[in-house]
């Protein structure tokens, strides 16, 4: 009797202990797991969430040179009202739209053409591909300075070449006239962005099965047809990702414009990010600058949602 109860007691004890041990081990594991997450969470909180929240708070405050030292005063929706009644907002939106649209379309077409070209094997292909990638490695500031000089009105090499060839008679003021400035910065950005499109598309192309093309050839499809019926549909996921990345990349352009034209002449090249910069750091109207950033945030969030939806659909397929 005694021994039996003793045994059961012991048994229960060990069981309990085991259970307890198991539990604590689990708990420890769980803690270690989450410890690994900590740096990411900290990074996210400090460098992403905090600035965004601070910016949103700023957009509801009146804050300028006279009162920023004391933290500004709450102003409700006044900043947003001021922004929406400023014609420059609509001009900047239009400029951003033209800039982004032109960049994506042209970069995509040229990037795709280059990707198809560099997929072929010919002498020097690797070297040339590497050379194009050098462009991508240049910082935007360098590209901006480069193009500012190339496109300078009186002494730029572009005007020189164009006059020599006979395409133009008088020098075109690429960066200092209202008609051409936006074209000039768009062109510079396209030149800078093409290699990115090319390399992503090239990566996508290399995953396509060769045998499909062989089968198509046997069935009598020509090159154009197999491009339309095989390449394009199979590339759809890559293209979707690429367009979305390209959209966000072109939309947030700032440094190139800052260097080349400073948003001018007369706001001809002021895009949304530059508009926010202008309000905050040239006119020191931090509240309104914050409001523009807020609008930008909403636009980018909409884009991100569209992107996620598209990706979900793709994955379901």
């Amino acid at each position, binding site marked *: 009797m005694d021994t039996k109860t003793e045994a059961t007691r012991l048994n229960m004890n060990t069981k309990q202990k085991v259970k307890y041990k198991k539990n604590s081990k689990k*708990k420890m594991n*769980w*803690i270690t797991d*989450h*410890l690994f997450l*900590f740096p990411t*969470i*900290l990074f996210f909180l400090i460098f992403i969430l905090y600035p965004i929240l601070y910016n949103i708070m700023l957009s509801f405050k009146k804050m300028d*040179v*006279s009162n*920023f*030292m004391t933290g500004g005063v709450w102003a409700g929706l006044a900043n947003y009202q001021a922004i929406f009644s400023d014609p420059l907002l609509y001009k900047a939106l239009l400029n951003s739209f033209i800039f982004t649209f032109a960049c994506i379309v042209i970069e995509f077409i040229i990037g795709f053409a280059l990707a198809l070209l560099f997929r072929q094997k010919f002498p020097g292909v690797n070297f040339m591909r590497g050379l194009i990638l050098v462009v991508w490695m240049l910082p935007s500031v360098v590209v901006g300075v480069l193009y500012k000089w190339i496109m*300078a*009105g*009186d002494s730029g090499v572009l005007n020189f070449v164009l006059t020599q060839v006979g395409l133009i008679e008088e020098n075109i*003021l690429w*960066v*200092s*006239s*209202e008609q051409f400035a936006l074209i000039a910065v768009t062109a510079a950005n396209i030149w800078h962005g093409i290699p990115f499109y090319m390399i992503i598309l090239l990566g996508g192309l290399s995953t396509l099965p060769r045998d499909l093309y062989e089968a198509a050839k046997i069935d009598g499809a020509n090159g154009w047809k197999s491009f339309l019926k095989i390449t394009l549909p199979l590339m759809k996921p890559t293209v979707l990702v690429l367009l979305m990345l390209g959209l966000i990349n072109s939309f947030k352009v700032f440094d190139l414009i800052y260097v080349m034209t*400073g948003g*001018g*002449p*007369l706001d001809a090249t002021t895009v949304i990010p530059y508009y926010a910069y202008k309000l905050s*750091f*040239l*006119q*020191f109207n931090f509240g309104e600058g914050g409001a523009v950033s807020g609008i930008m945030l909403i636009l980018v969030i909409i884009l991100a949602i569209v992107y996620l939806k598209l990706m979900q659909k793709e994955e379901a397929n």
Partner: protein
Amino acid sequence: MFRIKNFLFVFSVFLIMGVITACSGGDSASSSETNKAEGSDQVTLEIWDFMQGRDAYINVIEKFNEEHEDIQIKRTEITRSNFDSKMINAAAANELPDLFVNSHSRFQAFADAGIAANISDMINESGLDQKFFEGSLEPQIFKGDYYGLPLYNNDLALYYNKEMFEKAGLDSPPETWEDIRDYANKLTNDNVYGLAMAGSKDEQGTFNFLPWIWQAGADLDTLSSEEGVNAIEFRQTLLEDGSVSKEMLNWQQNDANLQFLSEQAAMQINGSWNVPTLNKEAEFEWAVAELPKGKQRATIIGGEAIGIGSTSKHKEEAFEFMKFFYDEETYKSFILEDGNLPSIKAIAEAPEIVNDPNMKVFTKGLEYAKSRAYGPNYPEISAVVQELVQATVLGKDAEKIAKEAEKEIKPLLMTE
């Protein structure tokens, strides 16, 4: 629930750890500072400026560092166009430098915003203010108190290439607006523009625009008057004639001087600081003349001033540097090498300045030069003028842009 609680626990552990490390970091930093202080009593002052490549100025700082074991000055160079925003950001983050050098046109705004420290007591005690021309002290005075001291002054005048003038059959510099238009036309050919000046979208654009308005007999609150519109239209005629490049839209004063130095412009409107450079590097004969007369003579007074950051913990030490700077010997060698006009009376009589015919023109200009004393809203006013300059160069309707600018500027002047 358990999971969330656990998570919060882990998280708070880390937060606490973070706080602890942060604190200990602070501790070690402050302890090292005190160590230093105990060892040599050394204070390091920060100075922010945009004096790229201005050796004369940099030499003064180096000399100060050599002669002072207890105070060392560390320089940070910021571009002129970013300077104001850097200062304002630093003020918001409570990280203002101990000393800063900025255009004197910014000091009233900086005083109003609480960025520049009120240094009246230190100045009055030292009697330093007695050394200066009264006019050059004014831009740094806000509501009767000193917020800075003028490093130097300058004004705009007309540089002209004597050789090109001879070739075009001209023997004297232009006297009036009609003259300058006529001369610029005659001097312009395929490779040379008659006149170069700055029109960039920053303070320099405003600086090079205001004299024209004043010469015409208008001011910022009367831009849309006949005289104001005249000034804008006259600048537009120069551009339409083709004797001024439309690229001036992107030109700063440096760029204008580069055009002149490389003989791509026969005349330029620029400040006295180019005299030493041109003396050294120009391969042609040149001279300086007063700006041509419109309805009246006018030029603009410019210059940089030095101030102390309002949050500086070492204001006394910073003021030591100011006193050092305005020591007559030091200041004289600085001014002569830097090519600006002295703000100290004693140096203005130096033979090197009095006997230089070109510098004499600039000194004479000070007699009728106007300052940009438009109150604490001046940075915003200047932003409007910069837009106006751009619109002028782009050939917009003079009357319309003048009216728009005046409408924006007037309320900014009122709140003075």
